[in-house]
C-alpha cells in the first residue's frame, strides 16, 4: 500500500475573458500528473514559478478538488469524498506546514499545538500531555505559554511542526517551509522536520526552490507547465 498515489490529475482555472463572459477560456495549470509516494519517503517538488506546485499541493491535501483524476491517500480517494468525510480524514491523516506558519495569534504555542487535538475531541489531559511532549521535541519546552508575536520566526515554524507532529499524520505536506526563514534557521527547521518524520514513519512531500534541501530528500519531482518532467 502506498501512502499517496496520484493518478492522472488535471486542474484548470477559468480565465476571465475580455468581454466579461467567463465561459470557454480556461487556464490549464495541471495536466495529467501521476506519481506515488511510499510510507516514510521524503519527496521534493521543484520547478519554475507558476509551474503549478502550490496548486498540486492544495489538491493533494484536499483543500481543493481536481477536475479529473484520483488522489489516493492510504488507499482512499480524497477527490471522491464529501466535505465532511474529507474534514475528518484530513484531521487524522494529513498534516500541513506553511511558509507563513499559520499559527493563531491569540493562542499560545501550547494552545496552537493542541488545537488539532482539541478539534478532534481528544480528552483535555491527554491533549495537554501530547502537546507538551511535541513542544519538548522541537525544543520549545519553556516557550509553551508564549504567543506567536513573542517568538522568532524560526521558533514559530518549529511550533507549526510540533502541531503537525501532534496530529500524528502519516503524510505531511510542506509548501516552501523555509521560504521565510534565513539559511541557518531554515536548516534547523528542516533537520527537525526530517528527523521527527523519520521517528513517526511519516512521509513528507515538500515544495521548495532550494536545491540543497531537495538533495536531502529521497526523491525530487520536477514540475513544469503542469507536467512532471
Amino acid at each position: 500500500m502506498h501512502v499517496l498515489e496520484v493518478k492522472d490529475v488535471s486542474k484548470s482555472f477559468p480565465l476571465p475573458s475580455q468581454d466579461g463572459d467567463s465561459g470557454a477560456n480556461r487556464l490549464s495549470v495541471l495536466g495529467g500528473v501521476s506519481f506515488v509516494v511510499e510510507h516514510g519517503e521524503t519527496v521534493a517538488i521543484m520547478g519554475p514559478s507558476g509551474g503549478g506546485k502550490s496548486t498540486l499541493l492544495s489538491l493533494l491535501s484536499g483543500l481543493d478538488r481536481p477536475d479529473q483524476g484520483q488522489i489516493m491517500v492510504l488507499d482512499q480517494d480524497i477527490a471522491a469524498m464529501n466535505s465532511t468525510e474529507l474534514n475528518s480524514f484530513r484531521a487524522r491523516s494529513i498534516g500541513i506546514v506553511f511558509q507563513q506558519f499559520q499559527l493563531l495569534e491569540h493562542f499560545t504555542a501550547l494552545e496552537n499545538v493542541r488545537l488539532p487535538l482539541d478539534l478532534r475531541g481528544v480528552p483535555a489531559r491527554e491533549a495537554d500531555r501530547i502537546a507538551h511532549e511535541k513542544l519538548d521535541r522541537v525544543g520549545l519546552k519553556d516557550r509553551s505559554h508564549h504567543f506567536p508575536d513573542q517568538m522568532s520566526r524560526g521558533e514559530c515554524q518549529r511550533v507549526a511542526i510540533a502541531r503537525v507532529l501532534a496530529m500524528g499524520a502519516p503524510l505531511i505536506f510542506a509548501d516552501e517551509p523555509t521560504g521565510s526563514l534565513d539559511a541557518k534557521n531554515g536548516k534547523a527547521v528542516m533537520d527537525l522536520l526530517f528527523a521527527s518524520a523519520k521517528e513517526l514513519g511519516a512521509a513528507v512531500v515538500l515544495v521548495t526552490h532550494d536545491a540543497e534541501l531537495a538533495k536531502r530528500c529521497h526523491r525530487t519531482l520536477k514540475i513544469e507547465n503542469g507536467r512532471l518532467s
Partner: protein
Amino acid sequence: MIPPLNRFIVTEIRRSIRSTGAILAVLSIGLVGPILTDVLRTSVLAFLKENARHVLTADIAVSAFRPITDEELEKVGRRFKVDRTTREVEFVSMVAGREAKSLLLEVHAVDADFPLIGQFEIESKMQVEKPKLSSGEVWLSRDAATVLGYKQGDELKIGRAAFRIAHILTGMPGMSRTAFGLAPRAYVPRQGIEATGLFGFGSQVQHRAYFTFNGDIAVGEAEIKSVLPDPDLFVRTPDDSTQGIERFTQSVSLYLALVSVCLFAMGWLAAFYIIRVQAIQRVQRAAVALVFGASDRMLVWLELARVILMTLLASFVALAFVETILVPLEPWLARQILTQIALPFHLRTSWITVGLLLAVSLASGFLFTLPFAVRLRSARLVQLFSESAVQEDHGGDSRASDRALWSVLGVGLLALLFAVAVRLTGDSLRGLQITGLLAVVTVILLVVGTWLFRGIGILGQRFTRFRLLGLQLSRSRFVVRLSFMAIAFSTFVTVAIGQTMLSLGSEFRESVRVEALPDFFAFNIPEAEVEALSAWSEKRGLKFEHLSPMILARLTKKNDRPMQGDRFERFPVRVTWREKFLASETLVEGEPLPTRFNADDQRLPYLSVESRFAEQNGLHLGDRLEFDVQGVPMVAEIRNFRRVRWTDFNPNFFISFQAGVLEDAPKTWLANLRVPDRTARAKVQAELVRGFPDLSVIDVGQTLERVMGVVRAVLGPAEGAAMVTSLFSLLVLASIVGHSTELRAREMNLLRILGAEPRRVRSLYRSEFIVAGFLGALVGGGLGVAGTAWLLSRFFELSPSFDLVRLGLAMLIPTMAMAAIGDWLYFRVARGLGFVGRVV
C-alpha cells in the same frame, strides 16, 4: 490640494465603498442624538428667553397673599414711570357642572386691561387682545367647559355668585401655573368678585399687580423691591416666571444628553474600529507607496484628508437627517407648547451647533488617523512585505506605542464626550458627571468583563468540549469584548428605564386600589365650616378623616441665621400640628414629639420635619427654626425627621409642630373624605360643592389618572429612547462584526484545514457571541435591577416591583440577537473568502 491627490482620495473611498458606508452610517446615526437634543434644547430655551414677558404677561409683577393696596401701587408709580398697570386676583374653587359633574377651577379675576402683554383666544378662532368682560360674565377654558358639560351661554356658579359663560377660551395669556393643568382656568371681572364669598380669612387667594415700563427690568425689580419692602409682597420678573419650565427643559435635556452622548460614543467607537481595520490594510498599501517615493508625511496627510472627508460627510448626513425630522417634529412640539404658552414656537438650528459639529468632525478625524500614523511610523518595511499585514488583536497588546496610542485615544474620546455633554446640558458640572458616569460604567464593565472571560477560559480548560470556546473567549478580542460591553450597556439602559417605569406605574395603580387612599381630598375648609362639614359627612355616611389644620408661616431663620434661598423669601411654608403620626408617616431619625407643648417646661416647642425637605435645606436634628406666623415670631426646635408616603394623599406637611403651640394662629383645615359606596361618588361630590361652595375638593382618583398620564407621557419617550439605544448598539455591533471578517478568515480556514467541520466552526462562533451576549445581558440586567432599586428608593421611596417576564425578555432578546450576529459572521467569512488562497 493638488488634483491628483484629490483623485487618489476619491479612489480610496470608492475602493472601500462598503466600509465607508458603514462608517458613515454609524457616525451619522451617533451624531443625530446630540444634534437633535441640542436643537430642541436651545430652541426651547431661546423661546422662553424671548417670550418671558409673555409668560409673565408683564415686565414685572408683584404678588401677595393679601390685597395689594392702592397706596402701594401709587408708591411704585411715583418712584418711576410705569407705562401701564393692571390687577388680578387668583384663587381655586370647586364648581358644579351638569349632571352631578364638578371640577376644581382656577379662577382669575381680572381688570379690563388684562393682560398687559399677550392675548386670549376664543373658540371661534378669533384672537382677542382684551377680555371685554362685563360684570356677571365668565370666560371659561375649553378643558373646564368639556368636563363640566357647559357651553357658551350657560350659567356657572362660582362660590355664591352666578356668571354667564360669555366665551369658551382655547388660548390664555401667560402660562398655567398649576402643575399639569390639574385645575383649568376661568376668567371673571375683578369688580364685585367679593360676591362669591370665597374671600374668607385663610382661603388661599393670590393678589397680583402687573406693570409694564420702559427700561431695564433688573433695575425696575430693584426699585420696586426698595419701594415695597414688605416681605409679604413678592416681586416677579419675566425670568422668574419661566424658571419652572426652564428647569423642566433642563432635566429633560439632561436625560436626552445622557442617552445621546452614549449613542455618540458607540457610533464613534464603531467608526473608529472600522477605520482602524482599514488602516491596518492601508498601511500595507502605503508601504508600497513609500518604497516608490512617497513621504511618510504625505501619506499621513492623505489619510487625514480622507478620514476628515468622511467625518464631515457623516456630520452633514446627520444634520440633513435632523432637519428632515424637524419638519414633522416642529408642529407637534409647537402644539405641545401651545397648551402651556399661547405663542408660536419654532425649532432653529443655531450656527453654534453647526460650528461644534464641524469641530467634532475635525477632532474625530485627527483621532481616527492616529492608528494609521502610528502604524506607518513603527512599520518595518521588510516585515510589511513578508508578513500578512492583517493582524489579529488579542487582549494583550504589548507594544508600548500601542498602549500610548490607546491612552491618547481614550483621553481624546473623553474630551470629545465632555465637550458634547457640556453643550447638551449647558453646564460643565453636569457634563463632567455624564462623562464620568460613562467612564466609570465602562471601566466597571471592562474589569468585570475581563474577569468573567478569564474565568470562563480557565473553567473551559477542564472540559474537552468547551476548551476551544473557553480559549476563544478568554483571549477575547476587541469584537467579543465590545459585544459584551454594548449588550451590557443597552440591557442596563432598557432594564433600568423599563423597570422604573413599570414600578412607578404599578405603584400608582396599586395605590388607587389600596384602601388607605381617600376618595376626596378637601382643603381650604374655613374654620367656621369644620363642624358643619363633619356633621354633613356623618349624615351621608362618609368617613371624614385626618382633619388637619394648615397655617401659613414664613420660615425666616435657622439657628439665628437668615434662611438662604429665594424659595423662603418668596413663599410661606405650610405647617400643621398633630399629636401623632398618620399611617403614611414613619419616623426615620430622632425622638417622637411629646403630645402637647407645655409652656412651663422652659424649652422650645418641638418640630417634626419631612426627611427629604430637611436634606434639601440642610436641616439637622436640634436646629432652631424661626417662623413668622402672620406677624407673630415663633421659634421651635427640630426633634425628629419623618418619611412621608405622599401617594397616600393624606394631609401631609413638610413641617409639623407639637400640639399646643399654634392653636391661636389663623388657619384653614384639610381632611380626607371617603365614600364607602363607590357608586355614590359623583353625587356626593356634587352635593359637597353645592353645600360648601367655599371649600376645595380634589378627586383623588381623577388626579392620579392625570399624574399617571404625565408619567406615561414622560416615560413613554424615555423608553423609546432606551429602545433606540439598544437597537443602535446592535447595529453598531453588526457593523463592527461585519468588519472583523478579514481577521476571522485566516482563523476559520486554519480550523478547517486542521479538521474542524463547518458545523463545528459555526457553532464555535455562535457560542462565542451567545456567551458574550448572555454575560453582557446578565451583567447589564443586574446593574439595571440595582440601578432601578436605587433610583426608586432614592427619589420615590418605593421598593421596586420587577416584572420578571420583561426582565427575561430584555436579557433573552440581545442574547438571541448575538446568536444571529455570530451566525452572520460565520456565513460572511465562509462565503466571502476563498478556502485555499487565504492560507496556502
